[in-house]
């Protein structure tokens, strides 16, 4: 603000509520302009006052809804802690000595399954299993997205055409059916041994099929970055393309990379849940999806055993929502319009309500 209109703003900032009675009259300006300046001054003062009341002058620099970020980090953090430490304190997840199909009680916080497994314990192990798959798949997908997106965007030309064509093809071919088909073949193949139905393999398949959307986003941003002057300068200085990508371009993509990684994790956790529900998940380990599969085969819905199928879904939804909230906060950093426009609209509305000469109808009220 100060940069665009230095004289006017500084005058109004200094005068504040003093409405510029003395300063403007020293210069030969018309009465019209004075009235304008007055309005400007009141509006600015109103904004300043609003800012002051809402906690500190740095408030407008930080993400205004950092509440979202905090909520997201807390949710994801709690679930992660549960996934790490839950299995240590809970009883073995496949201990069938308990009574079957017990509703939640003091002894079994979330009840037991048809086979007498403790649901709380299953949930802890399942959370761990799902988080592992989400992380591995997210990393694989991010690596592929960087290769196909950033390389294509940076190098351009024929390489870009080929990589982009491939990305777009992968993008339009629906992911889950591909995963189902691959899983159906691989899991029944002989010679893969214990790997065939491991969660690592499920994670790899989900990662390999889930990168295309991120690649498109990264490519667009890399294309715009490569025309920046500091990248041109690095090129002129004789830096190798690999170094330019990793030292000049990737650091500027960090918010986007983080957002895409989070998307990848959400996608993988949801994908794993779907696959496992259909009976294509890992057999050796417990995940939230295999829990839901057990609940399905155990007729949990028909018998009203809600404590069996509701918790895993809630954990998935909470994890997804927490990650999405973090992404939201990142989004508002990457695209300041999302943060500033609602703030400005809010301020203007408040000023209009206070009768400070701002139009109180229309698009900006």
């Amino acid at each position: 603000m100060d940069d665009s209109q230095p004289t006017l703003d500084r005058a109004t900032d200094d005068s504040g509520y003093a409405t510029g009675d003395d300063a403007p009259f020293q210069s030969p300006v018309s009465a019209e302009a004075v009235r304008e300046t007055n309005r400007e001054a009141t509006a600015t003062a109103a904004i300043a006052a609003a800012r002051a009341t809402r906690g500190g002058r740095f408030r407008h620099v930080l993400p205004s809804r950092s509440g979202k970020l905090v909520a997201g980090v807390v949710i994801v953090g709690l679930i992660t802690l549960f996934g790490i430490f839950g299995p240590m304190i809970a009883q073995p997840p496949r201990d069938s000595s308990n009574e079957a199909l017990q509703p939640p009680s003091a002894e079994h916080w979330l009840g037991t399954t048809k086979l007498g497994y403790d649901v709380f314990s299953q949930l802890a192990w399942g959370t761990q299993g799902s988080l592992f798959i989400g992380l591995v798949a997210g990393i694989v997908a991010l690596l592929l997205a960087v290769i196909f997106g950033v390389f294509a965007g940076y190098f351009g030309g024929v390489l870009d055409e080929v990589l982009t064509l491939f990305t777009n093809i992968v993008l339009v071919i629906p992911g889950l059916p591909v995963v189902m088909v691959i899983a159906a073949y691989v899991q029944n193949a002989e010679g893969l041994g214990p790997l065939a139905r491991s969660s690592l393999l499920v994670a790899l398949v989900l990662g390999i099929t889930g990168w295309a959307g991120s690649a498109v986003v990264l490519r667009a941003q890399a294309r715009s970055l490569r025309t920046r002057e500091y990248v041109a300068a690095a090129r002129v200085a004789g830096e190798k393309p690999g170094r330019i990508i990793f030292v000049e371009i990737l650091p500027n993509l960090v918010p986007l990379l983080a957002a895409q990684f989070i998307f990848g994790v959400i996608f993988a956790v949801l994908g794993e849940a779907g696959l496992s529900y259909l009976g294509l998940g890992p057999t050796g380990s417990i995940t939230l999806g295999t829990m839901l599969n057990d609940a399905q085969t155990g007729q949990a819905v028909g018998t009203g055993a809600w404590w069996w199928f509701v918790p895993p879904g809630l954990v998935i939804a909470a994890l997804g929502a927490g990650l999405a909230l973090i992404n939201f906060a990142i989004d508002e950093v990457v695209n300041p319009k999302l943060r500033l426009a609602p703030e400005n609209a809010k301020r203007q509305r408040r000023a209009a309500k206070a009768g400070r000469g701002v139009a109180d109808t229309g698009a900006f009220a």
Partner: protein
Amino acid sequence: MSFYLRRVAFYLVTLWAAISLNFLLPRLLPGDPAAIMLGKLRRASGGRPLSEETIEAITSILGAGKDMSLWDQYVAYWGRLLQGDLGVSSTRYPASVADLIAAALPWTIILVGVATVISFLLGIVIGAWVGWRRGTWLDHLVPVTTVFQSIPYFWLALVLVAVFSVQLGLFPIVGGYDVFEFPAGPELSWAFIGSAVYHAILPATTIVLSSVGGWLLGMRNMMVSTMSEDYVVTAEAKGLTPRRVRTKYASRNAAIPSLAGFGIALGFVVAGSIVMEQVFSYPGIGKLMIQAVQGLDYALMQGVFLVITLTVLAANFFMDLIYGFIDPRVRHNG
């Protein structure tokens, strides 16, 4: 015109890639699906030897081992595909894969199609409104939609069934129509359509609830961005009514990226509804796919996978054509 040519070329290449993927998957992945499939078929036919024709169909779909070069197999595969021959199902022996798919496809297309259109329109309209009223309490609605987006389709379906069908008894638990009332299968009558619509309410609700958040969020964010464009300020300064600014200037432009992303989002909806059909035992293509995968009915699985891919491609292509019509810029900047 070069925009349309480019799009047609892209979809032809994608079509070729999808069919080649369908050809390569059973051949390149470890295992011998053709042998498994032939064994299943032999058992399904009651131990009688299979006809030459059936064996040939299966080997050309799933791989013929070392007797034939990969290229010859590829040519044979295309030949069979162009005749519309997708082999025989082992789980529903002796029905042909093509017939099974033809019976199941309309269920999914109508259900997913109608639910997606409803969800898209709802998301665009509500998103435009929330974006217009940016900076008010409505902004707090936005994070709530992300929760819905993160819920697995099939879990939401489970909860809906548990509440509305099992507890309250308002809706049927499974199926696409009342099998007791119509034991002969689908027929063209008002009673049957009514039964089908009644059975489709919960599945459709699942799709709408799970997918509306994405549209809403995207539209809201674009609306907020669009509202700070100069042409919106100009429209406002001209003294146009807020309604006109909202509908003719802001919403229209803000909706364009949502339309562009329609095809990609469709992939997610299709994926979600495949799993969801399992919950409702809906007689659609997803249920067929799951049956095929669980019964190791590889011929049926390959056929369903191919048809799902082709349908999604067709929908994408259709959206691209509309998009070129709505936003002339993409036609010129291609």
